[in-house]
């Protein structure tokens, strides 16, 4: 694999809450190769959105990075002063927000929001900014005339295209997209995904794609990272991870995921629920729900272990992955 554009090591993000400190992200190691689209998959509450915000440096007021390093293209972001870190934003790392009504400021026309970025952060003249904005709109499949519209005049899919155009404005090295297609209907979602795939190829984009949907990752991403309870449990090329998952949680997700083809036998749900991160378990965080649990799993956290080139999993039984995979396809395995 090529060199990593972004490398994260042992990153932890802690929230101050009424019930005490919660490490929503706790010891994440992650590499994003240049030119890769990385899919960060996990279920609600696993810390994927917190991780994305920590990478951007836009955590909410009650959260902070308590540990770890984020290195982007050779620069240690955590070592930078706040002003320097801010100067990198949008130029080096940009952001596609969740497709909600309010991800774009409702009171400004798209042209104004484009100019804000292109002139204010990109030092373009107004005229140059308008030309660039029109090009960007064209690139994401929007009519440049719509630059004069307010966000509420767009449909959900168009709003998401506009947000993507905004994110690409300053040729960022890395784009972080947080559930960018989740709120969209399936046909519009596919259209946006296709647009992203084409842009990715044309512009050689490096992107992190946060989602709960394995199928979206399968469709779009070259690399996949699976997150569970604040940690990355499996990482590797998408084709490899989905076809030969090495972590029981990934296997569980794959088996629970309904498909349009194949037999309609019972799906295998993963019993139980994720651990309470106020009091995280020692050892593997999936142990309580894992059908293949062994005594060692509850005492020590498994170190990431390579199963194939650039493909690792954090599981004590990673060596038996093949056997476990076969067992995991049986629904009975998952019944407690």
């Amino acid at each position, binding site marked *: 694999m090529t060199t990593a554009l972004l490398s994260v090591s042992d990153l932890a993000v802690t929230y101050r809450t009424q019930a005490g400190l919660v490490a929503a992200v706790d010891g994440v190691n992650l590499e994003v190769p240049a030119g890769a689209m990385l899919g960060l998959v996990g279920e609600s509450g696993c810390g994927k959105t917190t991780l994305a915000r920590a990478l951007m440096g836009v955590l909410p007021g009650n959260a902070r990075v308590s540990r770890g390093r984020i290195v982007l293209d050779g620069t240690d972001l955590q070592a930078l002063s706040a002003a320097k870190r801010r100067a990198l*934003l949008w130029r080096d790392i940009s952001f596609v927000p969740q497709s909600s009504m309010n991800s774009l400021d*409702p009171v400004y026309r798209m042209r104004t929001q484009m100019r804000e970025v292109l002139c204010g952060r990109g030092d373009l003249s107004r005229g140059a900014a308008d030309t660039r904005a029109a090009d960007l709109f064209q690139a994401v499949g929007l009519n440049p005339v719509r630059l004069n519209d307010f966000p509420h005049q767009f449909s959900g899919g168009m709003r998401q295209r506009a947000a993507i155009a905004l994110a690409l404005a300053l040729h960022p090295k890395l784009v972080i997209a947080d559930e960018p297609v989740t709120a969209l209907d399936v046909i519009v979602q596919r259209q946006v995904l296709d647009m992203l795939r084409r842009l990715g190829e044309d512009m050689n984009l490096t992107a992190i794609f946060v989602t709960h949907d394995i199928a979206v990752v399968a469709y779009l991403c070259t690399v996949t990272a699976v997150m569970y309870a604040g940690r990355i449990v499996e990482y590797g090329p998408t084709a490899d991870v989905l076809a030969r998952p090495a972590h029981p949680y990934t296997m569980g997700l794959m088996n629970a995921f309904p498909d349009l083809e194949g037999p309609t036998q019972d799906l295998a749900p993963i019993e139980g629920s994720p651990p309470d991160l106020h009091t995280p378990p020692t050892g593997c965080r999936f142990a309580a729900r894992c059908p293949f649990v062994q005594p060692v799993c509850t005492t020590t956290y498994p170190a990431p272990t390579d199963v194939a080139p650039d493909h690792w999993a954090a599981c004590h039984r990673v060596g038996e992955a093949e056997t476990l995979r076969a067992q995991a396809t049986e629904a009975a395995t998952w019944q407690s």
Partner: protein
Amino acid sequence: MVCLTVLILSFGLSRASGNLAISIAGADASAEDIAKINHELGLDRPLPVQFVDWANRAAHGDFGESFLFHEKVSSLIEEHLPVTITLGLIAIAVAVVVAVPFGILAALYEGTYIDVAVGVVALAGQAIPSFWLGLMLILWFGVGLQWLPIAGLDDWTGYILPSIVLAFVAIPVMLRMTRSGMVDAMRSDYVRTARAKGLARISIVAKHALRNAAMPVVAVSAVQLGFILGGSVVTEVVFNIRGVGYLAWESIGKGDFPVIQAVVLLFSIIFVGLTLLSDLVGAALDPRLRGR
């Protein structure tokens, strides 16, 4: 619609008591005297007739003649209104200038001691009865320090204390709205996006958060002006200011119903007008409401 109902109400209000003529002629007036006064004032006609007649004339700005001042009501009001309106406008300006910055401050320091302190001070402001505040200000600044006049509006210094007292009605409400609007805005997706854009904090707060939070505040200040005018009676009495509120108070004390009717109606119409203005301003500021 609302205006018409208020018209009926204000008419009904003044006619609800039957002893109108008695209150004018005095309690020991003879029956003929009362009948005579009733006839002179047209009070012996059926009520609906009286109402239509009155409403018709009111629509043309003719509220009849004051029982007590023996002057046209419209000219009485014309004489007293400018003072009240001027005070109201100054007061709402004071309220905005005080409430908005402190609301922003509290929101930016949400949950800290600054926020709690601003909140408690606002509540305390809300708790102080305005007539008492007026009296205390007179004692401190008028009598104690002798900086400002204790009554009347002889020059601009006379406006200072009454506007402060009037502004106190609106400050807590506007402060809370600014604060909650800013808190919501600062947590919103578009402010997070603005942060991700690497914009300076001042630009995030002013261009994105405040621009969104200000819309309801600006709109509500028109309505608050209506409340301030409605509450002007107390302040004008305390400071002995000859405005419409004072006129109404005098008239109520003496049962001068044409004046009361006219003032109540006037305040209602002003309020309805301000509510309309508030809607229009809101729509003009918020692109999502335009074209509806």
